[in-house]
């Protein structure tokens, strides 16, 4: 049994369903990110783990104990909020020691732990400052220390870096991951920023419209997206729609040109409409050696982006973008020219049928 187990959890608000049958097991010490756009149910799921929302159905277990109906103050779950939520009337040290004071720990122990936590977040000199005297990044560090001071079973972070500027975000995400590794604490991290999720997580749970679309390592989610949503949300892939020619071999006809996917189309028949995903970095403008896929199209646009040049090639209904590394000897095609593009078979990811088209529904 996993350390944190979310079993078939559902959350309904009046008429709408915010979270639909989410099932997930998180191992002790694992860092799992919930990734998805606004309104996908990731924060609601996190709030159910924290105890701020009660699931409409399903169970949540932490270390084997059913906490589904337990109030949040009895779960020993640390939470870091997007808006920091530091207590404005308390100093940094008082904020960090709040949970321990509530638990009626001896003053000496609280003092020791607060010092330890402030050293961990590299802010030991700011113990007597008030939250309004700190920068956003410092406030979020203090919020993290406060959540960790109570030695929670699970650490929950709800878009903790969203309110910070880009540079601080990168620094802080490395710090958070470093601290998490150092303490070995089981962590759930909610974000809509794919770069954050990809760089920090052991596993990513991609969510959309209250459902889990895919669970996997960052490598799996990026390289082998299972659904059109995952493929389009993670990275900037090309999604091509066509009709399946041979489901077993994985051939599909895109605008009259047949290509072969990396795997067969499960549950599809010849003639079914399906999608494939193709990352821009896997497509070449010239013909590749070997038995890869080739397609002919017209250059629709050429965008110079500094280190790379993004070229858009249109077939008929579908179009793909491909990236060429910039170098002074690069000969760029002109708009309207006919070109050939090629890509290896392994780069063509056959996507599952969207849920609305599945036979079950």
């Amino acid at each position, binding site marked *: 049994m996993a350390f944190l187990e979310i079993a078939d959890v559902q959350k309904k608000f009046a008429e709408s369903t915010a979270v639909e049958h989410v099932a997930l097991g998180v191992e002790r010490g694992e860092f799992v990110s919930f990734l998805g756009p606004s309104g996908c149910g990731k924060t609601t799921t996190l709030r159910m783990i924290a105890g701020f929302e009660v699931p409409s159905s399903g169970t949540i277990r932490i270390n084997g104990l059913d906490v589904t109906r337990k109030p949040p103050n009895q779960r*020993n779950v640390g*939470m870091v909020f997007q808006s*920091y939520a530091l207590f404005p009337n308390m100093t940094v040290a008082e904020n960090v020691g709040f949970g321990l004071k509530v638990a009626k720990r001896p003053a000496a122990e609280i003092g020791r732990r607060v010092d330890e936590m402030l050293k961990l977040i590299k802010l030991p000199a700011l113990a007597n400052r008030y939250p309004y*005297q700190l920068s956003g990044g410092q*406030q979020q560090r203090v*919020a993290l220390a406060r*959540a960790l001071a109570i030695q929670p079973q699970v650490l929950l972070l709800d878009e903790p870096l969203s309110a910070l500027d880009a540079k601080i975000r990168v620094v802080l995400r490395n710090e958070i991951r470093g601290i998490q590794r150092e303490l070995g604490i089981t962590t759930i991290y909610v974000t809509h920023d794919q770069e954050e999720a990809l760089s920090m997580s052991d596993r990513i749970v991609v969510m959309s419209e209250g459902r889990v679309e895919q669970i996997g390592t960052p490598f799996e989610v990026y390289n082998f997206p299972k659904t059109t949503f995952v493929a389009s949300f993670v990275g900037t892939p090309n999604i091509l729609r066509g009709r399946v020619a041979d489901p077993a071999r994985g051939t599909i006809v895109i605008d009259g040109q047949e290509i072969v996917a990396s795997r067969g189309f499960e549950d599809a028949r010849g003639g079914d409409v399906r999608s494939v995903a193709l990352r821009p970095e896997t497509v070449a403008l010239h013909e590749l050696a070997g038995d890869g896929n080739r397609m002919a199209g017209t250059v629709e646009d050429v965008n110079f982006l500094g280190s790379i040049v993004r070229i858009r090639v249109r077939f008929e209904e579908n179009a793909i973008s491909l990236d060429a590394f910039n170098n002074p000897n690069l000969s760029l095609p002109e708009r309207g020219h006919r070109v050939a593009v090629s890509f290896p078979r392994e780069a063509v990811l056959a996507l599952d049928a969207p849920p609305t088209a599945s036979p079950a529904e």
Partner: protein
Amino acid sequence: MAAMKRHTLGSWLFILLGGLYFFLPLLGTFECSLRYRRGVYSVEAYRIVLNDPVFRATFTYSTILAVATIAVGVILVVPTAYWIQLRLPKLRPVVEFITLLPLVIPAIVLVFGYLRIYNSASVLPLTGSETATDVLLMFSYVALSLPYMYRAVDTGLRAIDVRTLTEAAQSLGAGWGTILCRVILPNVRVAVLSGAFLTFAIVIGEFTMASLLDRPAFGPYLQLIGANRAYEPAALAIITFAITWACIGLIQVFARRTPGQVAGAR
């Protein structure tokens, strides 16, 4: 440039007119309060008033009642406003309407209502004894100060992120009592103090309820002196103004001294 000068001049003119409208009567009253002795200015009227045992007794009585009113008002209003903000925001218009009623219904109507409901022949004969009548008067003051106390606290609560602070405290193991006393109340302290000082100012000068319930409060004493003396009422009016201003000054002092109540991060 010339237009801007005219604009500034106009503003100062209005400030001057407003100041004269407010301060001239006050100055007149103050001057009158100093004319107890013929031909010379003196503080004799103040000395007489402050040495009057009835002044001390009624002022002490009203002060005690004001402190009790503030305590009960805070206990009633803070959790109510907090819960409405946190869990029942749809009820806010209803509660706001209820808290405004004491401004709409005259005090005399309220007190006659109390006398009908709590008279000595009723199920709850609060007017049957002096102590019970004091309690009744205190509760009537709580109702009277509700519009000011509720609004002050509600404004304070709106200025902080009640929900997130509550959830942060909950996730750290805090129960409702701890959250209210150690997280919410300290962060709306200035608002609560504003409400408290306004309540104090209202209770100290209130006449109708204290008079009709026949209690020895400061309001009826003011009226009595005003009806029978020449210079002492002016001195009392100035003293009352001074008390009110002291209350407002204290609000300002506490607002500046409260740590961590500056919104936003640097």
